[in-house]
């Protein structure tokens, strides 16, 4: 139950409310009454709740005090020169790309490429100028939850982000890349990137959401809204590789209609503290929803993966597979909830979280929940936590592979198992490359220490 008492962190909510008051007039779409109204309602909701404390059940394992405490300013306006943009794709498979630096759209770094008929890929602020009618039905309207105060903060303060619109039956064969770079300045900065993806009936596309950091202390508070209309197919892959000092909180809400398919994956490796919260709403029969992920955390990192899947209609399937490794004093949190509503008969829900603890100080907190109100369902979840299997290590050592190599081989295999859930090959390869990169760096570190 969300406690309404004034939490110690709630005091800092005032900082953001003040920011809203002084900045509201200059925010994108300030001239649109409907948007201003939504922004005001959002800041009101945030002001009421403030930053969630650990007393709130959904935030039991993730402490936002460090975020709440810091006086985040607006990012510096000075344009930073970027020589090379990170990407998970090789040049051959690259498609349209939007680049944001510290939350601001950078047209000179972006390339829309040639888009097929019916596909719009634009900055959200620009789209608000040119096609507000397309945004109005969805922006801030995709199953907002009263339990997500940080999404409300984003809804009030966002300055830019991406708008992807796929008209009925439109299809894009190349992935759309949305790259959010956090550069950070002298003082801690905050930005609130916002993404709205609308796939009309029968449309299909692949979107890569890539958050990367170049250092510095900053707070990226993302909100993603996805609408998948009847029969639409969306592949949405997120790479979270924020800077080592960064805070990353992202709330993704997803409204799906009949026979829509969503294939999502999150790879988490960056940020000092991160939380990826996914809230799909399966509102009509025949939906297939896949949410998977892998995480690799070390040092003092804290990574939280939370999902709340609502099976509100019969004959839907959901599948979640998360594999993670936790090294040093890092901590990982997995909270997954499957809600099966009363009439959602023939639901098939599956959820698996497996974690490997690689050090004596690492910690994993796992809370896989099932809440079921329909009887003709098949739901299961599993969670395993532990170290690598000694027998598997022995098997490899018996074949002449040394212990360290055997361990990294098994860790790689463990993470790849999750990465295999990605259906688009080019992306799968790119994400696998990231996993290997992380493991190689770790192995190099171990060798140095040895």
């Amino acid at each position: 139950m969300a406690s309404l008492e004034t939490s110690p962190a709630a005091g800092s909510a005032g900082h953001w409310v003040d920011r809203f008051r002084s900045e509201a007039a200059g925010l994108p779409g300030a001239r649109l009454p409907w948007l201003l109204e939504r922004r005001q309602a959002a800041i009101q909701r945030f002001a009421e709740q403030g930053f969630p404390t650990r007393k709130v059940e959904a935030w039991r394992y993730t402490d936002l005090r460090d975020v709440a405490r810091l006086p985040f300013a607006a990012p510096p306006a000075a344009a930073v020169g970027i020589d090379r943009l990170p990407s998970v794709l090789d040049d051959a498979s690259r498609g349209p790309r939007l680049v944001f630096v510290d939350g601001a759209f950078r047209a000179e770094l972006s390339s829309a490429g040639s888009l097929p008929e019916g596909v719009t890929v634009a900055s959200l602020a620009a789209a608000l100028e040119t096609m507000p009618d397309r945004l109005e039905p969805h922006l801030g309207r995709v199953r907002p939850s009263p339990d997500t105060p940080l999404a409300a903060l984003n809804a009030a303060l966002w300055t830019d982000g991406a708008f992807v619109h796929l008209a009925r039956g439109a299809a894009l064969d190349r992935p759309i890349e949305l790259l959010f770079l956090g550069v950070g300045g002298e003082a801690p900065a905050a930005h609130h990137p916002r993404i709205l993806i609308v796939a009309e009936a029968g449309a299909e596309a692949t979107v890569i959401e890539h958050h990367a950091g170049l250092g510095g202390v900053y707070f990226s508070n993302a909100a993603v809204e996805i609408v998948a209309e009847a029969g639409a197919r969306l592949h949405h892959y997120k790479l979270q590789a924020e800077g080592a000092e960064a805070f990353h909180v992202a709330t993704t809400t997803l409204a799906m209609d009949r026979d829509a398919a969503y294939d999502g994956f999150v790879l988490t490796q960056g940020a000092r503290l991160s939380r990826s919260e996914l809230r799909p709403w399966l509102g009509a029969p025949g939906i297939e929803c896949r949410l998977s992920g892998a995480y690799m955390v070390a040092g003092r990192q804290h990574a939280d993966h939370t999902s709340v899947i609502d099976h509100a209609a019969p004959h839907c399937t959901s599948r979640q597979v998360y594999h993670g490794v936790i090294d040093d004093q890092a901590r990982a949190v997995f909270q997954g909830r499957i809600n099966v509503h009363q009439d959602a008969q023939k639901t098939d829900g599956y959820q698996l979280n497996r974690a490997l603890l690689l050090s004596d100080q690492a910690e994993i907190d796992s809370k896989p929940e099932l809440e079921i109100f329909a009887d003709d369902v098949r739901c299961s979840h599993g969670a395993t936590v532990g170290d690598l299997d000694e027998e598997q290590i022995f098997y490899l050592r018996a074949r002449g592979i040394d212990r360290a190599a055997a361990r990294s081989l098994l860790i790689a295999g463990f993470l790849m198992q999750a990465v295999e859930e990605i259906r688009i090959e080019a992306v799968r390869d790119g994400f696998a490359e990231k996993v290997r990169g992380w493991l190689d760096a770790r192995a190099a570190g171990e060798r140095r220490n040895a």
Partner: protein
Amino acid sequence: MAASVDPVREFAEQKYKYGFYTDIEADTAPKGLNEDIVRFISAKKEEPEWMLEGRLKAYRQWLTMAEPHWGKLGYPPIDYQDAHYYSAPRTKAKPKSLDEVDPELLRTYEKLGIPLSEQEILAGVENPRVAVDAVFDSVSVATTFKKKLEEVGVIFCSISEAIRNHPDLVREYMGSVVPAADNFFACLNSAVFTDGSFVYIPKGVRCPMELSTYFRINAKNTGQFERTLIIADAGSYVSYLEGCTAPQRDEHQLHAAVVELVALDDAEIKYSTVQNWYPGDENGKGGIYNFVTKRADCRGRNSKVSWTQVETGSAITWKYPSCILRGDNSQGEFYSVAITNNMQQADTGTKMIHIGRNTRSRIISKGISAGKAQNTYRGLVKIMPKADGARNFTQCDSLLIGDRCGAHTVPYIENRNRGARVEHEATTAKISEDQLFYCRQRGLSAEDAVALIVNGFCKQVLQELPMEFAVEAQKLVGISLEGSVG
């Protein structure tokens, strides 16, 4: 299916079997809760000063606490002033032996299927296997086979008696597993507990028979606050079983118990519960509110505690029998069947706290929900940094019968040791048409088929019960689900 349902429904009209009331003159404390009531209870029990002090301290603490509401339970606010906190059958003098116990009471227990006469059991069976402590409202009315148990040094008596006769043991252990301030209901219990059982098994003794306590709520508008303490000294073993029933009434009655188990080096305690408090009628009228704190402290090396529970009764169940695995190599087990039908609500599970090295725990939970009931498994497995080699396996299965009930699983897994291995599995399903068809085709009636399938679903747990009770529990599983097929 519709045509075959009717006979099942008819059969289900059968009422709660233990819903009768014994008309017996009783000593009852005035309604309400205050320091005077606490003093009254303590005086009735002829308790020493230190016990009264403890009760008053707990009562004052309780006043500062708030009732917890994190469970998935819905019920109107409980008025703690609207109940009697003490009620005991009136007797002229303390009965010295079973012969002096009010025959009306003996008849009550007989009716419940709990014979309190030692001879009768002796006549039927060569070696009596079960000793019983019978608790009626706020007092223990009889404890059987005390002499025989004393021969091997086992102390089995009511807690009130233990406070008077074995104060050193009680002072050392009571509150050491569940401190008074542990939670709201435990704190209330610490202030107003009336009776319950006390067991002490000396070093190296294997208790020669099953020990059992039978709790009966009889009086109207009373709460029952039992307190049980079991100490298994080094190298000892005991198997203990509790059962409970209450009359059928339209008002809710509160039951808030505290059970503490202490297992020292190499000791083993097997604790089984068959909870069959009055569940209320099909509209949710009446029934017991069951808020229970049960915890075992595996203090010694190689100690083991095994909880087995069959929860079929109560309007509301809030109960998490737990193990603190402190001693190296200690083991905790939790086997649970929780059945909710009609308007019943259960939020139950366990906590396994791994502190010592090579500690092991196993959780098998079977939840069955029918009618408009809500059944929640809520559990915590926590591995502390020093618990090298700790292992846990958890399996939570839920079965739904009907589309107006709910089954929920809320496990918390917290691991801070890389050498530990924790595995958790949960599934939710319904009785498949295929299974039902297969049974029906072989001539089983619909309700027999359901009872058979459900018993198979629960088998892993039921087989952990002492043999004498396993049969009874199997029947109970069938009865609790009557009227749920359709």
